[in-house]
């Protein structure tokens, strides 16, 4: 009997036939990267394969000199007779599910994914498979996302109220993904918008690579009074830092799926929490997994044990797998500079 198509090793998800890893956390020969967040795209691999829209950020973070092959969604790459292809995961720009096929047997590693269309990354597509590897960051029934439009309206309302009170609105979230989603969906802006260096760098790279993003000025060389009515986009690491002083008086907002629970907001020293996540919520996980047609599911990062048990009770064979990918919170904490 041949070895399983994909294995879970101490370095990450591994295809023994092709000698390829998916999102390894130890340096390997050849890595397929699902997306450019730092817990999935680690430095030190000899060869990288990723979606073409991930290239600019991967090079920004891992170095311009990495050996990187890029592909479009659906474009097959054959390695040692194993057929690999990337498919939209809807998580952030360039994010992909990895489809792996050998003699008609199909596995899909979902990476991080979300179902809601964020109007910036290519929307998630269901890929039929025999075995599906799913994340479970928000795999509890308490996590159900409100419609994106409602959250954007809530943010705009908060921003406008701050304008009335003469305060700057400092909105925090992951520099890659969350911030572009906000920029695209909050338009037309009711006031000026500025970016923290981390956000600015990511935006500039994406713009250079052809993304349809407006120019957002760097928040450092601006006169203080300009901030009174402004929205300032910042990474989570800005919270509580002295960098914020220049915006006083200000109100702080934080965008994350964890904001769905009151404790999630109260534990951070922030004024407002907005429920905006780039991961699938409980309902989306439960709709999507059956749609893949998978006979077997591996549950990775998140509420793995709970969600695997739930799937088994629903009659879907599921196994819990330990990985080193972060949850949305750790991601955001790790991300300081672009």
């Amino acid at each position, binding site marked *: 009997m041949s070895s399983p198509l994909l294995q879970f090793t101490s370095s990450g998800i591994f295809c023994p036939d092709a000698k390829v890893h998916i999102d390894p956390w130890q340096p390997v020969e050849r890595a397929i990267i699902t997306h450019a967040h730092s817990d999935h795209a680690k430095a030190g691999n000899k060869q990288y394969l990723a979606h073409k829209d991930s290239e600019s950020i991967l090079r920004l973070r891992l170095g311009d000199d990495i050996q990187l092959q890029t592909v479009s969604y659906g474009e097959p790459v054959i390695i040692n007779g194993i057929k690999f292809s990337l498919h939209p995961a809807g998580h952030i720009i360039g994010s992909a599910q990895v489809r792996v096929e050998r003699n008609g047997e199909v596995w899909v590693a979902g990476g991080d994914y979300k179902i809601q269309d964020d109007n910036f990354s290519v929307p998630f597509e269901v890929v039929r498979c025999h075995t599906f590897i799913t994340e479970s960051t928000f795999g509890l029934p*308490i996590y*159900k996302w409100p419609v994106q439009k409602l959250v954007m309206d809530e943010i705009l309302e908060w921003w406008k109220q701050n304008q009335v009170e003469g305060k700057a609105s400092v909105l925090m979230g992951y520099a890659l993904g969350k911030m572009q989603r906000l920029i695209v969906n909050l338009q037309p802006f009711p006031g000026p918008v500025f970016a923290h260096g981390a956000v600015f760098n990511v935006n500039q790279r994406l713009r250079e690579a052809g993304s349809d993003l407006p120019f957002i000025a760097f928040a450092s060389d601006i006169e203080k009074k300009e901030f009174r009515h402004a929205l300032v986009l910042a990474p989570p690491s800005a919270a509580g830092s002295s960098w914020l002083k220049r915006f006083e008086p200000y109100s702080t907002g934080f965008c994350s799926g964890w904001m769905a*629970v*009151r*404790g999630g907001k109260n534990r951070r020293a922030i004024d407002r929490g907005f429920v905006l996540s780039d991961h699938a919520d409980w309902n989306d996980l439960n709709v999507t997994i059956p749609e893949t047609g998978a006979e077997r599911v591996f549950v990775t990062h998140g*509420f793995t044990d709970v969600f695997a048990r739930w799937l088994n009770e629903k009659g879907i064979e599921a196994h819990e797998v330990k990985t080193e990918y972060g949850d949305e919170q750790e991601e955001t904490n790790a991300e300081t500079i672009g």
Partner: protein
Amino acid sequence: MKRFTELFIHLDRTNKTNEKVEALKSYFLTAPDEDKIWALAVFTGRRPPSVFKRGQLHEWAMELAGIPEWLFRESYGSVGDLAETISLILPVSPSSGERTLNELFTSLIDLGKASEQEKKDFLVNTWRQLSPYEVFVFNKLLMGSLRIGVSATLVIRAIGEATGQDPAVITHRIMGQWDPVTTSFNDLIHSKNSADELSKPYPFYLAYAIEGSLEDLGEAHEWFAEWKWDGIRSQVILRKSQLFVWSRGEELVTDKFPELHAMKNPLPDGTVIDGEILCFENDRPMPFNVLQTRIGRKNVTKKILSEAPIVLMGYDVLEYDGRDLRNETQEYRRRLLEQIAASIDLPVFRLSPLVDFPTWDDLRAQHSQSRERGAEGFMIKRKAATYQVGRKKGDWWKWKVDPLSVDAVLVYAAKGSGRRSELFTDYTFAVWDNDKLITFAKAYSGLTDEEIKEVDKFIRQNTLEKFGPVRTVKPELVFEIGFEGINKSTRHKSGIAVRFPRMLRWRKDKPVSEADTLENLKGILEQFG
């Protein structure tokens, strides 16, 4: 419900007093009258009738959400609050008809005698009509656990601004007994002479802990000092030949203390005495837990009366012969109180003795006697002070003795609730009993947020066993645990119960082997128990 929920969200989002008052004021200006009285009832700590058991809420919510018990528990473990967990797992309903607070509360009262099925139908239907946040607030109301983060003073200020009434008048009116079912907001706030005026206590004047040195207060001779007693602060009211006893918690406790009824005859009508109810024997206070067991009893039996006899330790007189004396000086009121005590001459009424101190140093010298006398320290009152409303700085100060303390070892931990629901913040501490650790106290407070994070991390990495929500932790961390009192206990394995335990300090300098022993605790018990 929508408007009340918005008010809650407003109050929850800000920690600025002015913004809170504005939000409250706007509510009291715009909400329907029949809702205001319920809101006020909630703000003053009155609970709606308790119609549902927690288990019922939990069971029906699971059923409606279509999830099994274990998954509900996992969800609850992650949220840390039952009301919120339910609001998050229920299917989000599209319909959202407005249900007023009054409608909801009235329905709840009518449900008192309803069958389980009727109760369930009501709850499920109500949940379906409310948004998730409304469900959260509604559940909190049902469980009587809505914590709003506004003090009575703020509510009173807001109502004052909204209605143009004097805050002191409002305070007086909303204290005491009224029932939102039979009282209208307008009657309560605006009516001139409500019938229950008779029983109403005055708002208590409360002291802050002293800041800085005694000398900062000015000349010693301008001040009184009394021992600070640890009992139940109360007002004994005699009006129209009826006697009422109110605790500081705004509870009418007349029936709990029949001994005080002896004061009815000798006192003139229209008298209000402010004092401390204490269990008292052989000329000294008994431990607080004696009083506590007495409060817990439904019926005051002869046995209790003889085992836990009480006195009223008189501090102040607020009304005499029907005249409100609160604007008189402390000195005036004290002299009158002394005269009253002398004239009625009842063992159940004792005058709180004044401490003699020609200089501040003389007062300092006596502070250390507090525990021997069964007191918690001193109350220092300006002779020229009027009797004010609520906690005010300036004229009254409390100066408590340092807490008793021992160094103890962290052995069990559980997650906190609310803001701390994902952190291990509830700790159990132990001391050495020969070569074993024996638990003696639980404590939740006293650490900084940074320290909590550090301890939380330690707990996660050093868990030995899990029992449901509780973890056994490798005994390695030592904390100085402070407490206000110590008593024998038959309920605790250590044989000791401490009062108000909290963490004073993390003793990173101490190895576990140097933590205190049960012998040390017993020594403290002997000395101060």
